[in-house]
């Protein structure tokens, strides 16, 4: 029984890692949003599996919350945003995808090593996944650094939050409910504010290229 649970959770963790790499290499904004939705879906499934096998009822709520927030609302908001900003078919020119991927692999190895001593201590059925979660955090971070457009950067930010959520449900049995609600609220408000921001940036610079935002430097 627990064997099956561990297998399933590991499968979802692997899918999540794969999606993180896909996000890193994807150029089309629309596909990025789809990948992000898939990531949310994976999270919902892994949380549900955790809830079933560990008999922790509050994990069902958190799975539901994730579904509403990350599979329905966030992608919907992002879709609206790209339609309103008219960047639906935008393709970003990414240089050096192979180098980025190699760097990503190095990050994954680093994360696994860092998490190794802790994974051995965790009592949860899904202890091996902490390294993967940390790797996903670092990969999203890398994505934010390599992107120069506002929307991919924001998706990187949200993917990082997904990875953190995965860490919370897999390494421990999920954070207390009040904390999870608070985090969800923060992410949602943050997303809305970023949306408002993008309109302001576009109004000011006529583009969503973050490279416009590099004027403030020390002389």
């Amino acid at each position, binding site marked *: 029984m627990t064997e099956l649970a561990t297998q399933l959770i590991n499968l979802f963790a692997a899918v999540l890692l794969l999606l993180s790499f896909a996000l890193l290499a994807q150029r089309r904004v629309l596909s990025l949003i789809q990948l992000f939705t898939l990531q949310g879906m994976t999270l919902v499934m892994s949380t549900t599996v955790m809830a079933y096998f560990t008999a922790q009822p509050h994990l069902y709520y958190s799975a539901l919350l994730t579904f509403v927030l990350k599979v329905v609302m966030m992608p919907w908001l992002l879709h609206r945003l790209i339609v309103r900003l008219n960047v639906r078919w935008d393709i970003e020119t990414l240089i050096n995808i192979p180098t980025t991927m190699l760097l990503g692999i190095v990050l994954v190895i680093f994360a696994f090593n*860092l998490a190794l*001593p*802790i994974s051995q*201590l*965790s*009592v949860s059925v899904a202890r091996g996944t902490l390294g993967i979660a*940390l790797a996903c*955090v670092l990969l999203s*971070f890398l994505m*934010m650094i390599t992107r120069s457009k506002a929307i991919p*950067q924001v998706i990187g*930010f949200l993917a*990082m*939050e997904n990875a*953190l959520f995965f*860490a*919370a449900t897999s*390494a*421990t*049995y999920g*954070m*207390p*409910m*009040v*904390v999870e609600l*608070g*985090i969800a*609220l*923060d992410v949602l*408000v*943050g997303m809305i*504010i*970023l949306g*408002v*921001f993008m309109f*302001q*940036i576009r*109004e*000011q*610079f006529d583009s969503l290229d*973050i490279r*416009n*935002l*590099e*004027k*403030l430097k*020390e*002389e």
Partner: protein
Amino acid sequence: MEYLLALLCIPLAGGAVLGVIGHRDRAPEINVAFSFATLVAAGALTVQIIANGPMLVLDKQFFVDSLNVFLVALTAFVAFTTALFARPYMRIERDHGKMTPPRMRLFHSMYQMFTFTMLLALLTNNMGLLWVAMEAATLTTVLLVAVYRTPASLEAAWKYFILCGVGIAQALFGTILLYLAAERAIGSEGVGLLWTELAAAKTLLEPTVMSLAFVFLLIGYGTKVGLAPLHNWLPDAHAEGPTPISAVLSGLLLNVALYAILRCKILTDGALGTRFAGDLMIGFGLVSVLLGAFFLSRQRDVKRMFAYSSIEHMGLATFAFGMGGQIASFAGLLHMTVHSLIKSAIFFTVGHASQKAGTQMMDGIRGLIRTNPTIGWGLMLGSLAILGMPPFGVFASEFLILTTAMRDFPWTTPFLVLALGVAFAAMLGKVQPMVFGETTLKRLAHQPALIPVFVHLSLGLMLGLYIPPYLNNWYQQAARLLAGGS
């Protein structure tokens, strides 16, 4: 408990009310009224704590002890005086056409919400809620940094959001690791994030997990404190946002973020029993002090200069807490208090000075003392105070920090002395021509509120000469807590 609830509900209600009517002519007064009510509630809570000692209420979710009660009082106080300052300041900005009614509404509403998040972060006993409140603090201020909608302010706000967002995500990972350690030590009944529970079982927490958790928490909250090399957002956000926001960012947000680190340090020290956390803080603190001082000397924008000065002083406080021990922790707490009071006073004067000059560039601000002696003297005295001239409070805390460093960590002394010397020479050289000399400045359309400046400065002066017994008592208790006792 009623006071604690009132303390949290008043700014929350203020945020809601001003979200509806914050654009009206009387809104600045309403803003001041809400802040005053918050201050009264904070005062009542403080009196209660003095009388009855620490309290743990509402299903153990809220906790007040000697470490946070003085910060609560300080936060409510600075929030109130800044609201007083903002009243004429924002009216002048409106007359200059920089603030429209919707922007005024945003400003007033978010100002109250920011106060709420600060108080929530201080009062909560739940390390997860602490994280939520810190993130919410970024969210409430980010639109305010961009409120003027200039290219520079948009850039500053974007940088602020992304850098602090990434930083605070690291802190969330740290919090998850903390919870992981707690589950092993005290079980998983949802109490594993309550600080009091963690502190009671701190020796049982797994050292490997705790050391990794502390690294993530320090980087995460350290981004908000403005510790180098994670400080990049800070000067931009301070320089491009409206001045009342610069004042509360410097005076309150940095303190609260440092407070979060301190709570984590107590747990980590208890679990590890080594100097690991302290040494990390010494390193980050020392780099921040040096970097703050050297960049400060190269600035031309007055608000940027004082923002770098904030980095320097927060670095110094972090350094003091890193050294640990009764005296250094005491000095660190005193330094946080005095810095917060004096730096906000400086921002009040700087705000009006740049309104008079129509620019924030120091070359354009000349001879303040001719047109408005109170602003001129306020800026001069504030700068002297922040540079650590006796008899102001910064002198006392810096003196204690330096002497402890000489005794316990002699190798750090030359760096500290060098940084303080550079900051002194640079800032004095820049402030002097701004205050004295020939003038080109205009008059202000609204009478500026300068009483807060002098109230803050005299409190800073008082703390240098005489610390009231109950305040001294708190500092001692908190310092004992930080030094590892109970």
